[in-house]
């Protein structure tokens, strides 16, 4: 059984006991424990079930590479699935539960799958469930889905109470990984004077060296770490962060780091995670190495663990994984585990070493303490169900004939180490195969390149393929100095030193024993979580899924939550063997960010709820809010849709607003309208190119309605342009258009007409804009006093500066409703004041505010087009009968040439008309007019469609505009519009102007 040892444990505080629960059981831990160490201390080796076969799963590793120990963490709104127990720090009151089983972890009916495993080889689902077809949707897939997933889904109504934030940082050098290599690199770069950020994903500095190392600079490793930290902390140019993982490396030295601020203390105030966006001139990856499992039958039974993890638990946490540990290895390093077990007073019945005759100091040390070292041997199979009970030993060379059984409850395995090359690889760093170590390591000649073609990532220490302590330190110091040099600093000081213990070479062994039968191979796990076995990879190769990506996808190797940190190299070595190709030729799959999963909350940052996107408020926002507005989101703005009075439906409110505006007086908040100032000696010439109309001839003091087309000739925006003075125009755009029309103007100015003297400024938010509309519009302005707004002084399509009620304003006499109308621009800071003034003085004239829907109806009654309704990116001004706005005098304007193309000049186009239903009803939005028969693809032929359709409270009937084939030539003709329910509406083609055809009302 696994239990807490007498020995202390480097990282736990034995003075502070805390309690947590697992599957409802209350258990004890010490401060500093990870959930995995705490579970092991409580004899909870079985922690979950695998994905496909629901095999029992135990803790196998001690860090980020753990594939098995995933738990449901917390509860309620703070519930988190798939939390990795090996990197979860225990706090008082933590609640965890195991995943992927029913009804319980101990007894799981899904485990039946393991007995069927022979019928469920890699890719079985591609070959099954094909017939009969309906069964896939109704039976097979639902069944597969039921068994999908690992962790529980959070409750549907979960609202995460925690907050998340971003940090933006710029630095010369970012060093990822706080083991001795990272610390050393930081010392090197820091002493040289470079600005450095050093981050470590765990809570502690020093990494593996504190467990595995002997001495650095003649002192115990732990003491050296303390000194190094002291020196680093004393340097102002160094920022140190623990619990911060380098998550992804992107182009141009952009690195994401993921800092976990409160996960280790449980629910608390302040942000839970922080996403750092670091711009680093140089990135040093000192991310260490990960031990590889070995492939032998039964290597997935709980109790089979990485040799390094077994000693980590003993040394770091004072926890034994079991009483009797058999070590199985192809290298010397695993002997450290035997020593650690012996030091902790535990038994090591044997070390099984596949190598024939190595003899080195480490092996000698183990032998001299009486441990049996079995050389040239292998594990034929592990015995046990939910826990290891022993191993059968065989010779590595043979086919697995059992020579001897050894009882044990832990198997500590080591297949060698692989550098963590993820962050090196994210942005295109290439790898090279290291024969001696049997691993891929960064190829320094093919590093990720920055914008200027120079390398910006440097690997250091074990991450760079150095596996001996002395070499690690030397390499890390050199690399730290190299990073400093590249940012222009001058290296100083000398590398720390350590004595390396001589080690015998590793023997690359990818399968145990060498001649294992299918039966054994189908019990050798490569990917513990996804249940991918040696036999699966072999099957993939046999069936021609030879590319490593095909093998991965066919078998799901490396696609689990650990992304193959333990399984990838072993899997591709098996594939290479099968294809009889060298491993480097087979290559690796692509390393993608993040290094380990990061929370969605952290990625989303602070942007949620009300501030999910920037909220743009007009200056009158609060007034609307106070007057019962119903909002409509328009881009990032909110605009009043209507102002329902008590008991009124939205529809009723809109009708009331429409009628009142026509009969009395309406106020519209038009502040969202885009306002672009175009200024300079060439402004007129520029606008002549942008608009289809002639703008250069506009007189100061006057306004002109203009159209803007894309290069392809399609209508993209419209609005009124006012000429302020000779050099200055004010261009109004649609509300949605302000930003992209501004960008459009800039693009042309910067890329094509960069020599024209024009500047554009977007002043949309500098002004509030109020449309005062209706027969009483002039009356209310006159009641405020300040300027002459008579027809004579301010005629239709003119503008003037002045004051109203003491507030400086600019008034445009333009109308989008067909009524007498003034659009008043006012400094944003005084807009609400003016609005309130107008509203108060307007009472006597029956004033009512109106919203966007009334605005739409009013303009539709007048047959005015609306960008986005009558246009959809395929409509040209000619389609809308806007020929009058297309200058014939100008040599060119954007879209002119495109409008001459054959399809655009086709006599048979869909053109704008009015539509009047025969029965007075409203045609549904988006309905099409049917034509005769079907086309070559069997679709019903259509001959037009509705573009705007409303109930007009003024006309007391449905009105619509639409685009109809040769429409204007077909006045009076009746069309059939099909509704989605199959019924039809009939409508006559009429003039699009429904109200005040002569236009007398606006020009009074």
């Amino acid at each position, binding site marked *: 059984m696994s239990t807490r040892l007498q020995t202390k444990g480097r990282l736990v505080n034995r003075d502070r006991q805390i309690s947590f629960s697992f599957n409802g059981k209350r258990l004890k831990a010490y401060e500093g424990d990870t959930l995995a160490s705490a579970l092991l201390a409580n004899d909870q080796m079985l922690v979950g079930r695998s994905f496909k076969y629901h095999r029992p799963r135990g803790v196998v590793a001690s860090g980020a590479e753990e594939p098995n120990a995933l738990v449901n963490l917390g509860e309620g709104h703070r519930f988190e699935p798939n939390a990795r127990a090996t990197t979860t720090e225990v706090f008082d009151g933590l609640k965890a539960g195991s995943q992927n089983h029913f009804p319980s972890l101990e007894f799981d009916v899904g485990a039946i799958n393991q007995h069927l495993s022979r019928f469920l080889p890699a890719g079985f689902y591609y070959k099954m469930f094909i017939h009969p077809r309906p069964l896939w949707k109704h039976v097979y897939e639902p069944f597969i889905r039921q068994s999908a997933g690992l962790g529980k889904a959070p409750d549907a109504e979960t609202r995460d109470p925690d907050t998340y934030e971003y940090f933006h940082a710029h630095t010369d050098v970012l060093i990822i990984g706080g083991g001795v290599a990272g610390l050393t690199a930081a010392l090197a770069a820091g002493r040289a004077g470079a600005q450095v950020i050093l981050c470590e994903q765990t809570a502690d500095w020093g990494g593996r060296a504190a467990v595995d190392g002997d001495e650095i600079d003649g002192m115990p490793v732990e003491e050296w770490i303390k000194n190094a930290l002291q020196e680093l902390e004393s340097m102002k140019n160094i920022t140190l962060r623990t619990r911060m993982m380098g998550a992804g490396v992107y182009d141009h030295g952009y690195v994401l780091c993921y800092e976990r601020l409160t996960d280790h203390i449980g629910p608390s105030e302040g942000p839970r995670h922080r996403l750092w966006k670091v711009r680093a001139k140089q990135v040093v990856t000192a991310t260490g190495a990960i031990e590889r499992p070995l492939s032998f039958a039964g290597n997935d039974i709980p109790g089979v663990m990485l040799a390094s993890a077994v000693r980590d638990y003993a040394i770091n946490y004072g926890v034994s994984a079991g009483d009797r540990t058999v070590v199985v290895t192809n290298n010397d390093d695993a002997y450290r585990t035997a020593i650690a077990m012996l030091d902790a007073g535990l038994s090591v019945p044997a070390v099984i070493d596949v190598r024939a005759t190595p003899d080195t100091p480490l092996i000698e040390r183990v032998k001299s303490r009486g441990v049996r070292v079995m050389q040239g041997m292998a594990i034929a199979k592990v015995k046990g169900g939910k826990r290891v009970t022993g191993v059968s030993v065989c010779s590595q060379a043979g086919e697995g004939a059992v020579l001897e059984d050894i009882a044990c409850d832990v198997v500590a395995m080591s297949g060698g180490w692989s550098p963590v090359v993820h962050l090196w690889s994210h942005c295109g760093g290439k790898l090279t195969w290291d024969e001696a170590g049997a691993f891929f390591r960064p190829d320094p000649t093919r590093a990720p390149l920055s914008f200027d073609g120079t390398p910006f990532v440097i690997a250091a220490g074990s991450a760079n393929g150095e596996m001996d302590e002395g070499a690690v330190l030397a390499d890390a110091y050199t690399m730290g100095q190299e990073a400093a040099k590249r940012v222009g600093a001058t290296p100083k000081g000398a590398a720390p030193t350590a004595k390396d213990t001589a080690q015998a070479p590793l023997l690359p062994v990818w399968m145990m024993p060498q001649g294992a039968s299918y039966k054994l191979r189908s019990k050798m796990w490569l990917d513990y979580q996804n249940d991918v076995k040696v036999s699966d990879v072999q099957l993939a190769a046999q069936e021609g899924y030879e590319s490593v990506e095909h093998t991965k996808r066919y078998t799901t190797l490396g696609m689990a939550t650990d992304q193959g940190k333990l399984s990838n190299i072993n899997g591709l070595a098996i594939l290479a063997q099968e294809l009889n190709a060298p491993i480097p030729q087979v290559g690796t799959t692509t390393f993608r960010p993040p290094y380990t*999963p990061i929370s969605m909350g952290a990625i989303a940052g602070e942007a949620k709820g009300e501030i999910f996107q920037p909220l743009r408020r007009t200056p009158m926002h609060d007034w609307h809010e106070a007057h019962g507005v119903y909002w409509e989101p328009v881009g990032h703005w909110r605009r009043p849709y209507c102002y329902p009075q008590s008991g009124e439906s939205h529809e009723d409110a809109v009708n009331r607003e429409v009628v009142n505006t026509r009969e009395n007086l309406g106020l519209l908040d038009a502040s969202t309208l885009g306002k672009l100032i175009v200024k300079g000696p060439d402004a007129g010439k520029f606008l002549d190119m942008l608009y289809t109309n002639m703008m250069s001839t506009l007189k100061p003091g006057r306004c002109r309605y203009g159209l803007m087309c894309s290069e392809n000739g399609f209508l993209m925006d419209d609005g009124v342009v006012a000429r302020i003075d000779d050099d200055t125009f004010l261009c109004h755009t649609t509300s949605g258009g302000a930003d992209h029309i501004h960008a459009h103007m800039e693009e042309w100015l910067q890329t094509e007409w960069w020599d024209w003297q024009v500047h554009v400024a977007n002043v949309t938010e500098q002004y509030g804009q109020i449309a005062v509309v209706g027969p009483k519009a002039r009356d209310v302005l006159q009641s405020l006093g300040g300027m002459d707004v008579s027809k004579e002084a301010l005629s239709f399509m003119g503008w003037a500066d002045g004051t109203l009620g003491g507030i400086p304003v600019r008034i445009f006499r333009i109308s989008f409703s067909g009524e007498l109308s003034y659009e008043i621009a006012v400094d944003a800071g005084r807009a609400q004041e003016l609005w309130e003034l107008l509203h108060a003085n307007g009472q006597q004239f029956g004033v009512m505010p109106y919203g966007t829907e009334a605005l739409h109806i009013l303009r539709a009654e007048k047959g005015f087009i609306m960008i986005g309704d009558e246009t959809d990116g395929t409509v040209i001004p000619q389609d809308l009968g806007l020929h009058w706005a297309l200058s014939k005098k100008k040599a060119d304007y954007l879209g002119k040439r495109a409008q001459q193309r054959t399809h655009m000049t086709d006599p048979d186009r869909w053109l704008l008309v009015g539509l009047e239903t025969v029965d007075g009803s409203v045609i549904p939005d988006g309905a099409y007019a049917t034509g005769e028969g079907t086309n070559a693809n069997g679709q019903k032929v259509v001959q037009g469609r509705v573009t705007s359709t409303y109930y007009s409270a003024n006309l007391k009937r449905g009105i619509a505009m639409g685009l109809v084939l040769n429409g204007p030539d077909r006045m009076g003709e009746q069309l059939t519009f099909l509704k989605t329910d199959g019924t039809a509406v009939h409508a006559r083609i009429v003039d699009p102007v429904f109200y005040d055809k002569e236009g007398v009302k606006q020009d009074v």
Partner: protein
Amino acid sequence: MKKYSAFAIAREAARYHQGWERAWAKRAPKAKYDVIIVGAGGHGLATAYYLGKNFGITNVAVIEKGWLGGGNTGRNTTIIRSNYLQDPSAAIYEKARSLYENLSQDLNYNIMFSPRGVIMLAQTHHEVRGYQRTAHANALQGVKTEWISPSQVKKLVPIMNIEGPRYPVLGGLWQARGGTARHDAVAWGYARACSDMGMDIIQQTEVTAIKREGGKVTGVSTTRGDIACDKLGIVVAGHSGVLADMAGFRLPIESVPLQALVSEPIKPCMDVVVMANTVHGYMSQSDKGEMVIGGGTDSHNAYTQRGSFHHIEETVRALCETFPMLSRLKMLRQWGGIVDVTGDRSPILSKTPVDGVFINCGWGTGGFKAIPGSGWGMAELIAKGHSPLTDEFGLDRFVEGRFIDESVAAGVAH
């Protein structure tokens, strides 16, 4: 070819699965083919398959520079729907969707077409009107779609917050027979069927030049030597511009990165596909339990199959807002592909200025769903010179200004 079935699995299990054949043969290229297809993505393979199946043309090679299905076909988020706005689009996407329905049986390879339904959310009044238009168009095009209310949306997707403070859900366009399929399986299934008809699938071989004589194609140069052909189909998605250049013409195409990501797997909680165009994101849950998420394209042109992280942020924000329960899930993996985008957001299936050279590209962010229909039409185009499915998608439309603008319907990448 030995048939796949549950019985076959039982039979092979008894022999420890030693009897399974290669899914597709590994053959050396011949000196000459009737038709060469460049690019063994879904579209290239489907084109080859229907050339054989519908026209009996089997002296065909599909040449792939990497591994088959390794382009966008193996990177996409697998949304299948056909509720497009314009007639030509609805025709080809619906053809594809209906072929997907029986593709597993047709190919004898389970491509796991899962018609679980697709909702496109409307979160502005403008969007409501847009989707109502699409619904009307679809009814006439023979595409079954339906406008549904917010409460129906909530019932289909309990994890959705339909009352978000910024963009409350106003309804949705629902295509019940839309869904997803397993992308790799689509490529593998077609490849296996092509190989079975005697076609050669030549992987790890890059086409480096296109040979012409008197304005007519005669063959290609590859990293494994020259191969002659009578007709050539270029079906290389993001690299179309490069291949067109080899053939001496230009394309109105831009290549931009499109990214996607998945969460860690969780137990099933969302059975349909949801697309939210206003906030810009979409999501489905795979049969493995991962939440599969995508969003918009990068704004810069590139060939690196990774994108900029701020797009991931925007997408994740949008989805956390729409599905607040995502907040404590974790992103497992992000990746990108290079998509080939045209000005009108519609594909190009066309003859080219070079006699005998045909091109199929421009599927941009949404071509997985089109694979069977595109292959069907493209095969007809190559075999007969035209096809009602592809006629409207010719290159000449850019000269004539006859765009098939789907930007109304394809506001978000999918």
